[in-house]
């Protein structure tokens, strides 16, 4: 076990720091800075140069160093969102040459923003039962139906979507992966308000919406498989320990700052006990993440632990929420919604958010199915809710 970065990587770290010192300060033009970051080989490392990436050999340690140093300097990294994180890898793997040319570069710069069109009102955990239909008519797909849980759809230019194009095929084989322009009369986007008052999600209605015949990734009926690689990427995205660590640190601050019965909460034995227990869980997550990284570095794959990340993290967020709720006592009576500068009651929001974590990206029950089937090798029983 060697928890230090080796000398080669430490000199790389120095190089990154120099670059940041020279090129980034608050107010720097972000697009220009990103272009320099690509040229230096720090951003879009796994993307070919011809599409605007820096095409570097895979090196998880360098990637982590870059992440650490950019975060320390508060410098912008890659554009966030479904386009860069989900569509681009898919196009690189499965897209036709013209699709790659047309979409990747502008997605990387943030010029094209993408919405994800997967979930439907009747298709949650059983995603493959989706019913939004696409029919090929006069050289274009005509699409009718509805998607839900579409994040930031109102700010997006395009959507990648799973659409049922082969209604007579078995359910997994009747789906195609289509790209489409959201700015057309056949599409109606309606925001969905969340229980915490936010409205990042949308419903998207398709009423004879259209997209060209060749805006399809993979062949007709292959959409389910095309999307599978995306789900894998998404699960990776959720693997880090940053969120849990931020939650723990906030809770610790809360316990230091707030009082219970006139005494600082942090001095109460049960608060200390709870915090130490949560600290242990946090460290367990951290080391698990380190083990996963090490194993990916060694080409062994993240393995068992990787499949547990999501559930461990959503359980953790719920445990933090519950502890905070006890600490803030009656401050939870005040809503943080529409409140520009909430005090401790901001934890009411986290209380709600921690539920979203348990629901989003596959419910906790789906995660348990995955652990039972893939990690423990228990016999499958057809399906699970």
């Amino acid at each position, binding site marked *: 076990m060697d928890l230090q970065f080796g000398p080669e990587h430490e000199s790389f770290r120095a190089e990154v720091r120099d670059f940041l010192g020279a090129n980034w300060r608050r107010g720097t033009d972000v697009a220009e800075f990103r272009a320099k970051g690509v040229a230096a080989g720090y951003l879009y490392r796994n993307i070919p140069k011809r599409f605007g990436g820096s095409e570097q050999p895979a090196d998880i340690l360098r990637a982590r160093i870059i992440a650490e140093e950019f975060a320390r300097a508060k410098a912008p990294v890659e554009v966030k969102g479904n386009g860069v994180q989900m569509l681009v890898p898919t196009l690189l793997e499965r897209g036709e040459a013209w699709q790659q040319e047309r979409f990747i570069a502008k997605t990387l710069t943030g010029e094209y923003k993408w919405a994800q069109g997967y*979930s439907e*009102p*009747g*298709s*949650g*955990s*059983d995603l493959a*039962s989706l019913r939004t239909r696409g029919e090929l008519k006069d050289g274009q797909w005509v699409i009718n139906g509805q998607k*839900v*849980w579409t994040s930031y759809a109102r700010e997006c230019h395009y959507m990648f979507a799973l659409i049922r194009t082969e209604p007579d095929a078995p359910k997994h084989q009747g789906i195609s992966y289509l790209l489409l322009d959201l700015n057309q009369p056949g599409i109606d986007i309606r925001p*969905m*308000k*969340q*229980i915490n*008052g936010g*409205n990042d*999600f949308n419903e998207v209605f398709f009423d004879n919406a259209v997209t060209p015949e060749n805006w399809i990734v993979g062949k007709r009926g292959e959409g389910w498989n095309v999307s599978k690689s995306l789900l894998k990427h998404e699960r990776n995205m959720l693997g880090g320990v940053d969120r849990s660590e931020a939650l723990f640190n906030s809770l610790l601050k809360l316990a230091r700052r*707030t*009082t*219970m*019965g*006139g005494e600082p909460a942090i001095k109460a034995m049960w608060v200390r006990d709870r915090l130490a227990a949560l600290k242990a869980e946090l460290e367990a997550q951290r080391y698990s993440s380190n083990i996963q990284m090490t194993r990916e570095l060694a080409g062994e794959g993240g393995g068992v632990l990787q499949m547990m990340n999501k559930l461990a993290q959503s359980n953790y967020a*719920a445990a933090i929420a519950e502890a905070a*709720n*006890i600490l803030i*006592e*009656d*401050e*939870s*009576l*005040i*809503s*943080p*919604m*529409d*409140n520009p500068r909430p005090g401790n*009651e901001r934890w*009411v929001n986290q*209380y*709600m958010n921690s*539920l*979203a974590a*348990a*629901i*989003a990206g596959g*419910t*906790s*029950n789906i995660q*348990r199915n995955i652990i039972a089937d893939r990690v423990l090798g228990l016999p499958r029983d*057809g*399906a*699970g*809710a």
Partner: protein
Amino acid sequence: MRFDLDEQQRAFQQMVADYLETECPKARALEAHDRAGADLAIWEALMELGLGGIMVPEEQGGLGLGLLDLAIIAEPIGRFAAPGPFFDHALATLAIILAGSEEQKARWLPDMATGKLRGTVALAEEKGVWTAENWTLDGEARISGAKNHVLHPEGAGLLVVGLKGGRLGVVAGDAEGLAVEMLPSTDGGRQIGRVTFSEAAIELLPRAEGARLVDAGLILLAADAFGGASACVTMAVDYAREREQFGKPIGSFQAVKHQLADMALMVEPSVGLYWYAAHAFDTDPSSARVAARLAKSHITEVYPKVARRMIEAHGGIGYTWEYGAHVWLKRALFDQAYLGMPQAHRARVADLLEW
């Protein structure tokens, strides 16, 4: 011996439940979260049904019944998450009943029984300070200071204020020197404000029944919470029976079934806790102090847990504002925090039982 509601109580409770089922569907409970300001209409209708007078003596136009009769009505109100000042008005009314002089009762109770005069209670001071032993506001004819988390103070005709030594006093809603700052409330069905008194005129109630008033409040919150928690079980079960995935209702998947069974087990057996506490309040006040705290701490601790699981059981739809499941989660947070957290009440139980 009979440990159950009698026919009349069941009928009365059912009547209120039937009324609310029609008049306070989920959409109505949700509406209170959509717009600022108190929804008084349901409360007014409940007053017309006579619910303002349950504990008011017959000579002041009430039914002269006990807290148990009131609490079993608080249960369906919680079940339907009915918005409005039911709890605070009931508590203010009870304060007059418990602590008022005959003259004061005659002056206020008839109008409080009908809802013509609406009251509320001003109890909380610092963070976590709710109970009568810890109140610090004081004064004989005028008071200065502030009370937090006062329910529906705007438009209230009178405020019952908790004072040092567990005494209680009444400040008129339109008294000079009384200022209300409304705050956004987590539970949209219960509007909250901070009330400041600057040499405001106060009329004392002769008996120092503050502690007993808090006991009653704890029991009513426990009843509300039991109603809400059992509604959560029902909502989750109903959804699981309807919602299909993989070609069958999700309620037929064994893991879901067991999660719902565990929820039901958390909730159903706790009904007797609030019944007993209310009964003890009516018949053996000294034992009610512990029983009220056991009921409030247990049931209001279960309620948010069950509400969370109910939302989780719905998947994404449960997380949408429009679906309205969150109304119960937020009411659960309210019931849990109002009048003090479970931990505080359990600590008091340990003291009272001389552990």
